[in-house]
């Protein structure tokens, strides 16, 4: 049996930590805990987690600060778990490098699924030249997309967008992140482009591809 994935929970609420530990261990992961932001950062260095679940309301450091400091040296996937459900908070956290955002109270099964998705992204990027989701296959080397065994033509921009979402499958990409990476920094405010292209991709890929709209935040390809 290979080494189980490790998840670090940074939350000041003992009950939440205990609950998460139970849930995550049931999913087959090894769980580390930290009560404060500072403890969380050093634990991230020693424990070497594959995923971090971070609460934004910590007693010593704001969660956002912990996230920024973590991102200075680590690309470990981070899932924000917070009681705040303002889209602005979400966009801020995602732009600062968080991979996903779940609000409390949360559905245990969904949380596990999201953790799994963001951990898988790393594998796609590092090891696989091919992305597979349901009956859709993307061959990054050949720049070809296969839907239900048929090659489908995508324009250059559509392909670039699909590739970006696939490489970040499971992760919420904010509007500006996508616009910046595909159209360049000046296009950040032109969200209507994005909407048109997403609609085209959805049409061409049919129901083999699930791109979720996160209202006011961005898009997420559910892998």
């Amino acid at each position, binding site marked *: 049996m290979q080494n189980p994935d490790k998840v670090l929970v940074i939350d000041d609420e003992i*009950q*939440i930590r205990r*609950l998460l530990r139970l849930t995550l261990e049931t999913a087959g992961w090894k769980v580390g805990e930290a009560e404060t932001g500072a403890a969380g950062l050093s634990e991230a260095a020693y424990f070497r987690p594959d995923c971090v679940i971070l609460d934004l309301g910590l007693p010593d450091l704001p969660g956002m600060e912990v996230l920024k400091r973590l991102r200075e040296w680590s690309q470990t996937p981070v899932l924000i778990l917070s009681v705040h459900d303002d889209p602005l908070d979400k966009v801020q956290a995602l732009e600062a490098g968080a991979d996903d955002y779940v609000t409390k109270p949360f559905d*245990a*099964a969904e949380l596990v699924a999201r953790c799994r998705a963001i951990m898988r992204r790393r594998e796609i990027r590092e090891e696989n030249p091919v992305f597979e989701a349901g009956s859709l296959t993307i061959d990054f080397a050949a720049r070809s997309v296969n839907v239900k065994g048929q090659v489908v033509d995508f324009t250059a921009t559509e392909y670039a967008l699909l590739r970006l979402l696939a490489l970040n499958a499971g992760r919420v990409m904010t509007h500006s992140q996508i616009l910046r990476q595909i159209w360049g920094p000046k296009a950040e405010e032109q969200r209507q482009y994005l909407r048109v292209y997403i609609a085209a991709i959805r049409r061409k890929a049919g129901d083999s591809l699930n791109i979720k709209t996160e*209202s006011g935040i961005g898009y997420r390809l559910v892998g």
Partner: protein
Amino acid sequence: MNPDDPERRPEDYLEVAKSGVRSPRGSLRVYLGMCPGVGKTFAMLEDARRLRSEGASLLVGVVETHGRADTEAVMAGLPVLARKLLTHRGTELPEFDLDEALRLRPELVLVDELAHTNAPTSRHPKRWQDVQELLDAGINVWTTLNIQHVESLRDAVMRITGIRVHETVPDTFLENAAEIRVVDITPEQLRARLESGKVYLGERAGVAADHFFREGNLRALREMALRFTTQKVDAEKREFMRRNLIPGPWRTSERFLVAVGPSPHSGRLVRIACRLAQAQDAGWLGVYVDSGEVLSVEAGGRLAENLALVRALGGEVISLPAEDTAAALLEVARRENITQIIAGKALHLSWWSRLSGTGISERLQRDSGDIDILLVHPGETTVQEQKAVTAGKNYSRAREWGLVLGALAGVSLIGLLLEGFIGYRSVALLYLLCAAMAGLVISRIAVIVLAIAGSIAWNFLFTQPRLSFNMLNAEDVVLLFTSLVVAIVIGHLTNRLRHRELASRKAEERARALYQLTRVTSASISLEQGVRSALAQVEQVFSAQATLLGLSNSGNLEILGGPPMDKKEESVCQWALEHSQPAGRFTDTLPQAAIMALPLSVNGQITSVLAVKPTNDQLASPLLRDLLETFAAHFSVMLEKEEYQRSSRESVLRERAGEFQSALLDHVSHEIKTPVAVIQGASDHLLATNLPPAARPLVEELRQAAKRLNRVLTQLVALTRAEAGLIEARIEVCDAFDLMREVAENAGSDRVVVEECDLTFRTDAAIFETIFSNLLQNALQHGSGPVHVAANEENNQIRFLVTNQGPPIPEADQAVIFERFQRGKNSRAGGMGLGLPIAKKFAALLEGEVLLSSSDSRETRFELRLPQH
């Protein structure tokens, strides 16, 4: 008509807008006749009978039958208001009971003889003012009037009939009449009625009446009545054209200015100006230039009357201090874009103005440029009026002539005493000195007289041969004429200097009074202190006791500062407040009161009254009255400032309270959400394990309860934040189908059917989601079976429809479902009823609305309408 016609001026649109917002004012019908006896009252009563038979509620307020049988017959059966008996100097006068009519509030009140003058102790001096109040109260009025009582026709009537009419009704009042009905019979018929004794002639002596009812007079009066009505119809036509934006022949660019003074002719001038302006549908104003001349009491009163006449006829009054009347008139004319100046033709020009061309009319003609000047002959004045003018002048001049005589005698005496020491020629210089100095205290004419009289006296008393007007010495002759001219010129100059100084002193006093007022009030810390010092200023400047009253929360007037008032004075203030018009002394309403009450407008609403109790008559002067109005305006500003500060303090408090509430709720929700998360997570976990079958439903319940608690909390926070104004919409382009599908997915129910569509619009996605998910939850909760969700576009709006099957919402509940903490009576348990209020509140944030578009036994449909932008 094309509304974008470039010919339209903003005023036209304003007029149109005005006509759209009619206040619920009563309408006025006037039965107009050429003279008494044409049957106005009879016609009015007959119409009233007919209306009454149709079931209208009407009341005969006051009707004079003069004992005529036919009139009394037609009045029988109509409800008649009892007269109010007012005692004046021992006699009882039955008057129209205004208060009772206002209390009874019938639809229509009949008031005979509109021009009637009320008993001195009545609320209003004139009956037409009573009618005005009835109309203001929304009561319709029918009334009767003879043509000679129309204010602007007074002079014409006097010229024709030779009778001076004292009881008049202002034209502005008649302009507001909805209808004018001419009761017309031919002069022959009238003569016949007169002879058969059907006409009541009042207390008029037979001869005067006979003179009045001469056939020539009657024809002229009849023509006047008919023409007046035609003009009214004409005005209505123009009004209609303006309201319907029909480009008409009116020339609003014309503006008239009439010079108003204390002269008795001024009234006629004012009436002429009014008629000219009315005929051309033009604006007009009356201007009084205060040259610093001291007016006698009568002249001052006449001036006030003339200015009041301008106001009554609908003109605007401007009074200003200036030494040079002609220049001041032209200055005002230029500033006010006047096209025509109307002034009186001077009858008795002084030789000086004739010679130098410095008479006012000459100056006006010379310097007016493109402004037309109309010089009006003053017309015949009665002997009485002539007397009035001269008496006024004599009074102020008597002292002056005394001074001239005294000075002459004094200098002559001193000259006789000193002649031996200084020589007789030096005495001529003493006369010169005296005339020059006199210019400082006496008028120009007096100075000239003094100089001439001095020369004559010197010639008579001091030159050789003595005690004769002959002169032997040529040098003396030269000296005499030189000193005479020098005396006149210097006297004239010093006189002008004095006038200018007086005028500037007056202006300075005014400026200082205002400056003092601003200074003391701006230096005060509190409103109370400000009011106190401002009232003290009023007392000092106007030598009048001043009180400031304001509306309290209970709607009563209470004293904000100043001495208390008695019941009667309070009622004057109350009237001024309710009618937004000055009342009390020196005004048209309750002029017998000891106080004068000026309503103050604070932020466009009349909420306070400044009451002054003058100790002398100086407030009758238009300049001081003007200053008082300026003071009143200052009070308004002071109260406005206070009001503004109070409301801004309140709004800051409210905002803070809102923020605090929201922060508190945020905190509480945070604190509760964590344990809720634990409960939900723990039950999730339990459900995933091998539970004993008996425990499973219980854990399921636990999980449901936690979810519900969480939903309610989220809703409460959202609603509180929205109500505290803490939510700001971030508008972006969204896809309608995309948004609906996502909300449907998150709803966690397979009963939702989303109809596909291709619509984009600009909105805040998160706010939309809140609205839509609440509508969806509501539909899922209140119905069974599928919930249909669709969107379409209509009139630049996107309509989202959420339809569910199930029992209809009872009609009684439909009105309250969008209120907070309301729930349909037959709804199932669960949900506190915050969903729909939130949907409504949030829809407003997006400039949209949520409504219940239908609810019957088959289905219930909610609709969200958002602008497409």
